[in-house]
């Protein structure tokens, strides 16, 4: 880290062109969207509704306040935990934890009951989608990048091969995947599935959740309702697979760039010291590539919560609303229902959610990044 105090002017000067462009074309739209979200707005501005759209989406404000209060109490209890020495503070900590948790949960239930169910569904689906794609994508890319960087000899060919999914135009990848995962008995997925003796599935058009399908496959037709709601649908799983497939090469390329920026002598030194491949990976590569890994994870989180194109194109009526992530809901609100005001409110809610996630990620993971200093 370079520490020189007179640099503020230079710093802002260097930042200014980018900030200008980003400010005008990146930040202003957010402000504009907020302005739109305060109105009834189809194509043109109509009446002012203040935070009416937000209330419609998130539920009665009292429950949102409840949730926020509960979370604040939980945070407070976390602060206390580090100082929970005496029995008195311990008791306070536990009390705060319990009360905070209860209040937060009650708040959330209230929101769910009075808010827009489609938004809650969208967030649920988005969460499933993120949890499904990010770990596989990042881990897979790491393995792939390492293999393509250190282990193999025929690297160039494989590098291009794994990048193809990302650069092949979506019109081609979507058609192929929809054909592979079509409900027809002759589709690739069904033929593959029949090797295991299982019956045809509807894949991209299957709105039932995977556990539900398993249970039904075993002949159990009656099961608690929550099994249908708390898990991702088969269609969503197919969409997740599609996206992992597309973006794993993308992440691999970034990691490859990261790997190739590591000074060679670190690897050489480790090899001389007799470290195995695994040890080299764990103690040399991983720390040195952690800045890039942090980047990919952060960008992946933001990207998956905002993801649209590669999900929208895989949407079918059969999937009902089990692949409708937040950005798809926003898109529908604009292009099918023509309600730009409400759509903007949803977009702002999504924005705040992603922002909070990023800040939390930054705090949690940012500290563990090793910058080689």
């Amino acid at each position, binding site marked *: *880290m*370079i520490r020189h105090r007179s*640099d*503020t002017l230079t*710093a*802002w000067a*260097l*930042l200014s*062109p*980018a900030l200008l*462009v*980003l400010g*005008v*074309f*990146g*930040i202003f*739209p*957010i402000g*504009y*969207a907020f302005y739109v979200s305060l109105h009834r707005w189809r194509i043109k501005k109509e009446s002012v509704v203040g935070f009416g759209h937000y209330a419609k989406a998130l539920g009665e404000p009292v429950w949102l306040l409840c949730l926020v209060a509960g979370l604040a109490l939980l945070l407070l209890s976390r602060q206390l935990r580090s100082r929970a020495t005496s029995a008195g503070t311990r008791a306070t900590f536990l009390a705060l934890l319990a009360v905070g948790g209860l209040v937060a949960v009650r708040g959330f239930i209230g929101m769910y009951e009075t808010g827009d169910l489609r938004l809650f569904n969208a967030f649920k689906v988005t969460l499933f989608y993120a949890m499904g794609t990010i770990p596989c994508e990042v881990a897979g890319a790491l393995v792939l990048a390492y293999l393509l960087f250190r*282990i*193999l000899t025929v690297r*160039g060919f494989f590098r*291009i091969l*794994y990048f193809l*999914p990302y*650069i092949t*135009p979506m*019109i*081609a990848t979507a058609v*192929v995947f929809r054909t592979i995962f079509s409900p027809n008995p002759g589709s690739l997925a069904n033929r593959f599935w029949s090797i295991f003796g299982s019956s045809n599935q509807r894949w991209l058009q299957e709105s039932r959740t995977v556990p539900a399908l398993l249970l039904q496959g075993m002949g159990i037709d009656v099961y608690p309702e929550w099994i249908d709601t708390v898990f991702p649908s088969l269609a969503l799983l197919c969409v997740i697979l599609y996206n992992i497939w597309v973006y794993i090469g*993308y992440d691999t*390329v970034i990691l*490859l*760039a*990261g*790997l*190739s*920026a*590591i*000074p*060679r*002598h*670190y*690897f050489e030194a480790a090899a001389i010291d*007799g470290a195995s491949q695994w040890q080299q990976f764990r103690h040399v590569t991983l720390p*040195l590539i952690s*800045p*890039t890994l942090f*980047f990919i994870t952060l*960008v992946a989180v933001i990207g998956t919560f*905002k993801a*649209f194109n590669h999900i929208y194109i895989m949407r079918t009526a059969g999937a009902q609303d089990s692949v409708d992530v937040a*950005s798809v809901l926003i898109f529908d609100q604009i292009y099918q229902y023509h309600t730009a005001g409400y759509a903007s409110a949803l*977009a702002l809610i*999504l*924005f705040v959610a992603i*922002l909070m996630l*990023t800040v939390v990620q930054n705090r949690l993971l940012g500290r563990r990044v090793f910058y*080689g200093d």
Partner: protein
Amino acid sequence: MPNGSDRGISQWLTYAGLTLTGAAAALPFVWMMLSSFMTRGETLRRVFLPAAVQWGNYIEAWSEEDFGLYFENSLWIALLVVGGTLLFSLMAAYPLACMEFRGREPIFVVILATLMIPETVTMVPNFLTVSWLHQVSPFPWLNSWPALTIPFMASAFSIFLLRQFMRGIPGELFDAARIDGAGHLRFLFQIVLPLCRAPLLTVAMFTFIGSWNALGWPLLVTNTPAWRPIAVALQKFVSEAGPEVHLQMAGAVIATIPVLILYGLVQKEFTEGISMSGLKG
């Protein structure tokens, strides 16, 4: 040291696994190429291999929809966007990574915030901005390169990526440079820039791809074919009764070629680590 036969088997397994998954990776691309050589009837019947190679599809795709013009437009637009992005992102990442100044962390979050809003919602305000700029500026924005390039010349993604790389540059280098009498600017362009080859090329490539595939925004800010990019030409092979898949795929292959070439060039630069020749110990 791992013994020879162990290494052989694990290598073989690795290659086998990679080839299999690689086949899955290449499948749509292969399908795209095969379809581009089929006749329309063959695409309607969903055959797997064309009976004869229809090179004519490529000629037809190129000549039918003014492909040459769109292709050239895309090249110019991409070049401008990549150039601007590289410069502005490099300049912006440096202070965020290597300098201490007031407001560094918050401004970083603000920059990242621009990534968090879906495009569906930003298109309209950006168009209003561009339209206003078109009215007040001495040169045209709409239907011309400024509207198609300037909004994309800074990207939080690129700034963030470069910042991560720059953070890894040891402080000793700067101290050494300072002793030689270099200020921040010289340090940035003479020492940091060459060290950031890999991430810069990565940024260049992803920016190129993003610009190359853009469809919605170009259609919004242009009314005439004069500056329209290649994605519009591909769109024109889709009609209401159904797409002319064979021509569309031929167009798509033509559109993918520059990206492949660029990637091929870039990945050559991903070598086995850089040599920090300026640094001792």
